[in-house]
């Protein structure tokens, strides 16, 4: 039997040479199965070989290494300096609890047979034996909360849609993953697209929706391609369409591509964009669950929320709820990014501390310098200093410290970071991406950049610092959505925890 070779086709693996490695093997007559990534990105491109003892990984592999690997008997799991052993024994992976990401990096993303062989469609099959209200109740009982950032209970959203009578309802997947430091949505869409399709189908059956849209950002062309291909496969197999898995339920999916607007990750802005308009935020109420896409009741959930539904239905609410802490139940796919030695996807039950994540799992900085700050939760998340590394990864614990976990991204900065510059960038980003609907966000962000520039120049530092605090207050309480409302988090945390960077030109010169 010819051993099977697996090479990721994940965008980040491709970005560091996975295609070249695959082509080099192909030139030697060995065609690899192209998988997603396991998410150990410092080891990408990682290749895996099927052996009698299980898969053996090698990495990071460059095209130039292929000759030597073949000579060392890579296809039989032979010894080589790049040999990593069994991937699931690598500490970074071994410490994880992979529920949502159970298959990512292992299966052929477009093989339905592979998906089923690894437990796929068990959740939908069970859901089809239940009454819709019971499916919604199962999701509510699991404690699943919106993984896009807001943390709203998914089951409650679904219940509202189920209870709102309408001739047409929609399931919308928010795949506009714009937060810097996050890539879990991309990984799932590229590496295990059927889990998202299954989750959305369950959502449709549970709430009475027959149509779904996946709104994917244009920066993710590979995810768009894989999702579209997977939808075609699912449709041809009767897993989508007029009779889902031979049942009386109809459900089908359409992929829509965004156009580079960060604010479209905000749910009402996303709906406007899907309807073909400027992505301007809508005032709430009405909630999208009551009047959403095209004015119809709409479930709008993040990729990870929806991709977690299949395992909840397959294993039961209690199984999922048993992971986690406090009101944060289940697991969170945390993304370690930026200046970190071991960057990647780390799925774990809520409760692990920030310090464990950054120092133990992430291994500190990639540059080898001291960690000075981490930004958790994307461009609208707070900068935390080392003093707050005892904060457990939990929605409420972060909120209590004026931060947020957001979509689970952690960006690590070493001691060369200039925190005034980071605060300025937060305001600048808000100004670039503001939809323009509300004044605090549209005007306040530009004024924020100007005031921070005056502090950097050493102009009336005390007065301008007071002005920034006042401006942040206006943004926080006067903005329509999280873009303006949360921009104060990075700004104020930088100012609060790193005041030494806000004392005028001398610090800038030193940085």
């Amino acid at each position, binding site marked *: 039997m010819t051993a099977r070779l697996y090479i990721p086709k994940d965008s980040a693996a491709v970005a560091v040479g996975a295609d070249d490695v695959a082509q080099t093997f192909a030139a030697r007559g060995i065609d690899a199965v192209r998988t997603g990534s396991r998410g150990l990105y410092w080891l990408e491109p990682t290749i895996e070989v099927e052996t009698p003892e299980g898969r053996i990984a090698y990495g990071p592999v460059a095209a130039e290494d292929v000759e030597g690997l073949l000579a060392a008997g890579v296809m039989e799991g032979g010894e080589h300096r790049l040999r990593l052993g069994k991937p699931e024994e690598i500490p970074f992976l071994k410490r994880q609890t992979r529920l949502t990401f159970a298959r990512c990096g292992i299966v052929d993303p477009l093989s339905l047979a592979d998906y089923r062989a690894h437990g796929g469609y068990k959740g939908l099959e069970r859901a089809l034996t239940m009454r819709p209200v019971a499916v919604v109740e199962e999701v509510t009982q699991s404690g699943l909360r919106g993984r896009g950032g807001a943390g709203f209970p998914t089951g409650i959203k679904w219940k509202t849609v189920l209870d709102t009578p309408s001739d047409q309802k929609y399931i919308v997947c928010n795949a506009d993953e714009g937060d810097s430091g996050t890539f879990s949505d991309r990984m799932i869409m590229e590496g295990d697209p059927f889990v998202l399709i299954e989750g959305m189908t369950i959502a449709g059956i549970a709430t009475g929706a027959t149509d779904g849209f996946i709104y994917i950002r244009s920066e993710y062309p590979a995810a768009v391609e894989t999702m579209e291909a997977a939808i075609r496969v699912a449709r041809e197999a009767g897993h989508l369409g007029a009779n889902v898995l031979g049942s009386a339920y109809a459900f089908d999916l359409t992929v829509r591509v965004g156009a580079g607007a*960060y604010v479209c990750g905000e749910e009402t802005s996303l709906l406007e964009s899907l309807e*073909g308009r400027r992505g301007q935020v809508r005032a709430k109420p009405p909630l999208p669950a009551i009047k959403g896409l095209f004015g119809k009741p709409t479930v709008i959930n993040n990729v990870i929320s929806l991709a977690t539904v299949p395992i909840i239905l397959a294993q039961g609410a209690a199984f999922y709820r048993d992971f986690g802490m406090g009101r944060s139940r289940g697991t969170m796919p945390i993304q370690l990014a*930026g200046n970190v030695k071991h960057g990647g996807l780390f799925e774990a039950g809520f409760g692990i501390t920030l310090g464990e994540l950054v120092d133990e799992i992430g291994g500190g900085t990639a540059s080898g310098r001291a960690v000075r700050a981490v930004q958790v939760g994307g461009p609208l998340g707070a900068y935390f200093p080392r003093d707050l590394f005892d904060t457990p990864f939990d929605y409420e614990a972060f909120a209590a410290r004026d931060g947020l976990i957001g979509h689970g991204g952690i960006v690590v900065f070493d001691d060369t970071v200039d925190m005034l510059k980071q605060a300025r960038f937060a305001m600048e980003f808000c100004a670039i991406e503001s939809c323009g609907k509300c004044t605090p966000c549209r005007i306040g962000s530009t004024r924020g950049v100007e005031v921070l520039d005056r502090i950097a120049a050493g102009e009336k530092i005390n007065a301008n610092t007071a002005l920034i605090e006042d401006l942040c207050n206006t943004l926080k309480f006067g903005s329509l959505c999280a873009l303006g409302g949360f921009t104060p988090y990075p700004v104020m945390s930088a100012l609060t925890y790193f005041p030494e960077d806000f004392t005028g030109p001398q610090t800038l010169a030193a940085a």
Partner: protein
Amino acid sequence: MPFEAWEEQRARDIVAAHAGEAGATLPILHALQEVFGCVPEAAVPLIADALNLSRAEVHGTITFYHDFRRETPGRHVLKLCRAEACQSMGGDALGARACARLGVDWGGTTHDGRVTLDAVFCLGLCATAPSAMIDGKPVGRLTEARLDKMIEAAL
């Protein structure tokens, strides 16, 4: 990337192919840009007509989104990520270097029309930062040397 020259009938066909979709504006704009490299002003009345919108509404939608171009880009499009994860790995310096070497500002195209330099806020490659995309292909662990090589190849 060779784009087609503007031709009204070709544009009408593209618009018609998507006009029946729910919320068709963005799919139409993407399809036009894929063929012509941008959304030319002449396309605005065609879209407005097909979707029963005012020209102002179509104009408003086009200008809201960073992706839609009003002019054809250079033969190569280099996107550099300017977001936080890439900043933490020296992305700002690489951005400044790219601007200097190409002699353009963000969003600009070199005089010979060879390269357009775009800023992008996150490519989702944040654990292999700094990141770039050249003609749609992702590039990770970008260094000065790799950036120079990409620019030289494109020029």
